[in-house]
């Protein structure tokens, strides 16, 4: 900042001169571990919990973990698109809350099943609003979604008038949240289907390719004919859709809508995505990693639970694990 200091020129040359060096088996193992840090951690925690507690490996426990975290996992899979595109979505919690209220309100005033369908669509619409604000007004997504989350939050309050909206449990409204096919909850199937679509979208479609290109080098993407703004709006639309769907599952589960629902889901989803090794600088990432990130966080919570450990340390442990995982992948970048 001070003095006529460094220019980009020498940094550029340094990068051009960069050589790839690989050495020995230890390096290969280390390379795998840093590349797949989240998976290694997941396996370690999973194995440890299996040893430490006989309750952990019971099918019902596993199914419960999957089911309870399905809404967060849905938000994280779609949120991965936003982060890969180089953006941030801080409004997922607020959209979650709106979906919560919209689903219940429509269920009470019109039709329960229509509520379950309408809320995710409203979520997608709010995501599009995010995207349009970001691209039209050229506002950084961090700021734009921080602002819209306040706006959406107050809409949620407005819809409910500040009260709970309770839906009758006999109407079929709870099918999404409580329904089961055999021993498996429908929410788990919804998550599996949604995640599969996200994986295909990211890896097999032009849209996915463009998201990576926009996050990796926006100027290069633009000069290659990519409609950068449209891609960004698309990523935020997906994130909004997912937040809406997650909020819908949640309200279908408890059959009453709270305007303050989902306040934690925004940061949890971002934490899981980052834990999965998706770069906050954009341009790289994977859906499955975010899923592993979500369930790594879930295992930690579940582990504290079944081991009867002091819950005081849950967030502390989670924080340490995030720092460790991100530091591991940062060491890879700077090498």
């Amino acid at each position, binding site marked *: *900042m*001070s003095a006529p*200091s460094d220019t980009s020129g020498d940094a550029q040359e340094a990068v051009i001169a960069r050589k*790839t060096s690989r050495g020995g088996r230890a390096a290969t193992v280390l390379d795998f571990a840093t590349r797949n840090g989240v998976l290694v951690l997941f396996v370690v925690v999973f194995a440890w919990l299996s040893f430490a507690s006989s309750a952990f490996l019971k099918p019902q426990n596993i199914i419960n973990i999957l089911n309870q975290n399905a809404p967060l996992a849905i938000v994280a899979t779609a949120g991965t698109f936003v982060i890969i595109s180089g953006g941030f979505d801080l409004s997922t919690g607020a959209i979650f809350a709106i979906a919560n209220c919209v689903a219940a309100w429509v269920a009470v005033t019109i039709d329960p099943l229509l509520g379950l369908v309408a809320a995710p669509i409203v979520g997608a619409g709010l995501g599009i609003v995010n995207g349009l604000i970001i691209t039209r007004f050229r506002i950084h997504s961090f700021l734009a979604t921080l602002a819209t989350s306040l706006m959406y939050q107050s809409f949620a309050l407005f819809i409910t008038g500040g009260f709970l909206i309770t839906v009758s449990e006999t109407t079929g409204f709870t099918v999404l949240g409580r329904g089961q096919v055999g021993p498996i909850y429908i929410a788990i199937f919804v998550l599996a289907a949604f995640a599969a679509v996200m994986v295909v979208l990211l890896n*097999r479609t032009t849209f996915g390719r463009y998201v990576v290109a926009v996050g990796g080098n926006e100027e290069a993407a633009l000069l290659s*004919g990519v409609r950068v703004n449209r891609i960004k709006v698309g990523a935020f639309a997906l994130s909004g859709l997912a937040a809406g769907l997650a909020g819908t599952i949640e309200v279908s589960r408890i059959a009453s809508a709270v305007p303050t629902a989902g306040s934690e889901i925004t940061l949890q989803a971002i934490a899981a995505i980052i834990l999965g090794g998706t770069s906050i600088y954009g341009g790289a990432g994977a859906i499955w990693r975010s899923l592993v990130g979500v369930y790594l966080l879930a295992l930690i919570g579940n582990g504290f639970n079944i081991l009867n450990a002091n819950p005081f340390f849950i967030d502390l442990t989670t924080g340490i694990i995030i720092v460790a995982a991100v530091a591991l992948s940062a060491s890879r970048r700077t090498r």
Partner: protein
Amino acid sequence: MAEPTVRFRDLSKHFGATRALDNVELDIEQGSVHGLVGQNGAGKSTLGKILTGIYERDSGDFVVFGHPVRRWSPRVALEHGIAMIQQELSLVPELTVAQNVFLGIEEQRLGLLAGRDVARFEELNARAGFRLEPRQRLGDLRFADRQKVEILRALARNAQLIVMDEPTSALTVDEVDHLHQIIARLAADGRTVVYISHFLDQVLRACDRVTTMRDGQIVRTAPASDESEQSLVTAMLGRPMEITFPDRAEPRASQAEMLLRVDHLRARPTVLDVSFEVHAGEIVGLAGLVGSGRSETLRAVFGADPADGGVVEFEATRYDRRSPLRSLQLGIGMIPEDRRGQGLVSTMSVRGNMSLPSIQSFAPWGLVNREKEKQAVARLLRDLSVVPQRVDEDISTLSGGNQQKVMFGKWLGIGPKLLLLDEPTRGIDVGAKRQIYAMIADLAAKGLGVLLVSSELEEVMGLSDQIYLIHAGRTIGKLNPRETTLDQILFRLFGLPSDAQVA
């Protein structure tokens, strides 16, 4: 003056395969204004940046104020009293003039700002003979005044040697005169100024001694009074390069279909009035100095930047609402000048980069057929002999030359009719250059139109069928490279009469 302020001995610097400085020996005397001139890429700026610690030298010695230099960085250079005023100024627009001047050297009292900045500032202001308002926000100043702030900043750090890289490129004639007075005052004060510029008349007026550089070497250093614009241009002219250019058939341009016609294009501030034509099968060069608006012309034609005047016609149809996407759909590709910053997506593989503009053609309904994509990329890698021939290789592990081939492959994948090439061989080694020249000639032989911008005039001369000269945002002439010489082009680009005789 017994001991020179700066003494370079045997100094060398490489960028990848490019030899930027080659055994440079130079003394700069205290209290003198020392000019550095040369063509684009002759090594003037590199020398200035090594002196001020921005670049590190590869080998050689240099001594400043009698101290041999070992560890050297902008900070250490500044501690030794050496400051640089760069082409892109490095000031903070949100701070006031005084705050910028004292940035990093604020007077403190018990950790708080002492608040004497304005008084200190007025002292400097008076010494330099400026009339800057200390409390004005820097961002509100005109460019020339910002430059004065940079000069004050150097003075505030008690700089004894100030390197100015193209200080006048954004100044009006009056402002240039004023800057020269300031420089004379600095020299009279015992300070040394190194003045790097393309404007030879200004160099001759402002400097005591002038060093002419060519291809990273010093041609000669002489008193300014012994030089003329003609003698400088003659000295900076290169020998023919060791690279041979591909033999090309006589252009069929006159009969061939008109591909691109650009008429009075304007894209302010850099492009003012540019007109040219490209026919199918023709290579057209845009020759100009750095900052003449060459690259900006390319970008405005491609639709990467907005234009605010003029007409572009592609295949005899007006092409008005230009965008990269529309250009792509018409069959126009562009390889931008900054490969890493504007061309490649470093987080993607070779395949992802190469198929980016053409991916729609492998993706019915938006679903990418990866087998088809891989085959197409593999074919391009083979045709362009990219090393390594692996479609999923990490793009950042490739050499500069191979990355550039990937950039070509990107656009060849769309089946282009016209390619806009901005510095297609920047920073790549001689062997790769030769391959890229052959590729460009080959593409033209197949009927593509090529528009070429390069800082290396030899390249423009060796490849082009037609050359348009661009000076300060305007086309100032059209030349046939077969009927002209490098000297003549250079004379005209430096704004000298083209018929001037080379001594």
